[in-house]
């Protein structure tokens, strides 16, 4: 970690701690760790919150302070990694499978099996698939509506990599940042969204 990054992280931490109300800090995390046990790939370290997680754990309806939100978004944006070869689109057929697959990183999942993206849990994608969730916006016709400009491709890649770059307390997992999906898998999901032949755009 570079010195600059460390300073940024520390100052963010201080800011977050300073802005949290006393009630959200009152928790006794010893009782929390005593209530869980490590299983499979899920160790007790997963109970430790990141600064973002802590800032975004307030009661429902409580907004994070604007400056905290800005810091979180900036840190997220700075961490986005675009493919070195500049290739942002893979195979939509593979992306479709990733969008349908719900497993990955659970204590019960085999770490050797590739993780899914579970996009359909929260988003509508291909109009032909009737089993989709509504926690996130509909992405039906995504590429047909938005086109394939470089800016649009990069925006979408960033959304998938770390959605907090645009929305501080987004509920969407950080698929790239948290290493849920590989770079190749994200390319395939991108193709599923953008390829004119993909059922998303039919």
């Amino acid at each position: 970690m570079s010195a600059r990054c460390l300073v940024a992280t520390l100052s963010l931490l201080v800011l977050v701690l300073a802005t949290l109300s006393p009630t959200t800090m009152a928790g006794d995390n010893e009782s929390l760790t005593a209530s869980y046990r490590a299983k499979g790939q899920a160790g007790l370290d997963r109970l430790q919150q990141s600064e973002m997680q802590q800032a975004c754990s307030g009661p429902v309806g409580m907004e994070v302070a604007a400056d905290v939100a800005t810091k979180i978004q900036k840190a997220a944006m700075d961490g986005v990694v675009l493919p070195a070869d500049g290739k942002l689109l893979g195979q939509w057929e593979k992306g479709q499978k990733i969008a349908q697959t719900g497993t990955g990183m659970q204590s019960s999942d085999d770490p050797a099996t590739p993780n899914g993206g579970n996009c359909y849990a929260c988003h509508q994608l291909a109009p032909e698939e009737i089993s989709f969730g509504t926690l996130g916006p509909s992405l039906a016709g995504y590429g047909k509506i938005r086109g394939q400009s470089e800016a649009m491709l990069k925006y979408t890649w960033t959304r998938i990599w770390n959605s907090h770059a645009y929305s501080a307390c987004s509920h969407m997992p950080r698929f790239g940042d948290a290493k849920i999906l590989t770079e190749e898998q994200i390319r395939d999901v991108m193709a599923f969204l953008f390829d004119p032949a993909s059922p998303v755009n039919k």
Partner: protein
Amino acid sequence: MTVSDMNNGGHSRREVLSRRQVLWSGARLMGGLLLLSLAPIRAWAQALEGMFKERTVDDVLKALGDKPTPSDQIVLTTPDIAENGSVVPITVKSSLPSTTDIYLIIEKNPNPFAAAFAIPDQTDAMISARVKVAQTSNVIAVVKADGKLFSATRETKVTLGGCGG
């Protein structure tokens, strides 16, 4: 059937016999006798055995005999969408005179033939049951009435509910 037989399951719950379990054990004794009365359907069961191994609806229907005639005298009720394919409720009601048999067939299952019911005179030609449906599929109810085969067909969609993980 003795009390020690009851304990062979080895499960802690069976360690102590309550009054009701003793009564059940009595019912089991009678069950031995009643099992004899499964004998009349044994021949029917054996005749149907191959049916459960058929892999296509066509083969099932061929094995049943004539191709059934679609009939609006059969009311087949299934959910339009099932939240889980492992339990799909089905009700078949036949208004065809002299209905003697009702067969349940799930087109897309690896083995489509699911169940057969024989309806004696005293019993109404209506049965509810629950079956596994592997994927979105036609459900076919075949009814034998006065020795002839009739059918009704309905599609049930099977979807993924929940987190999928």
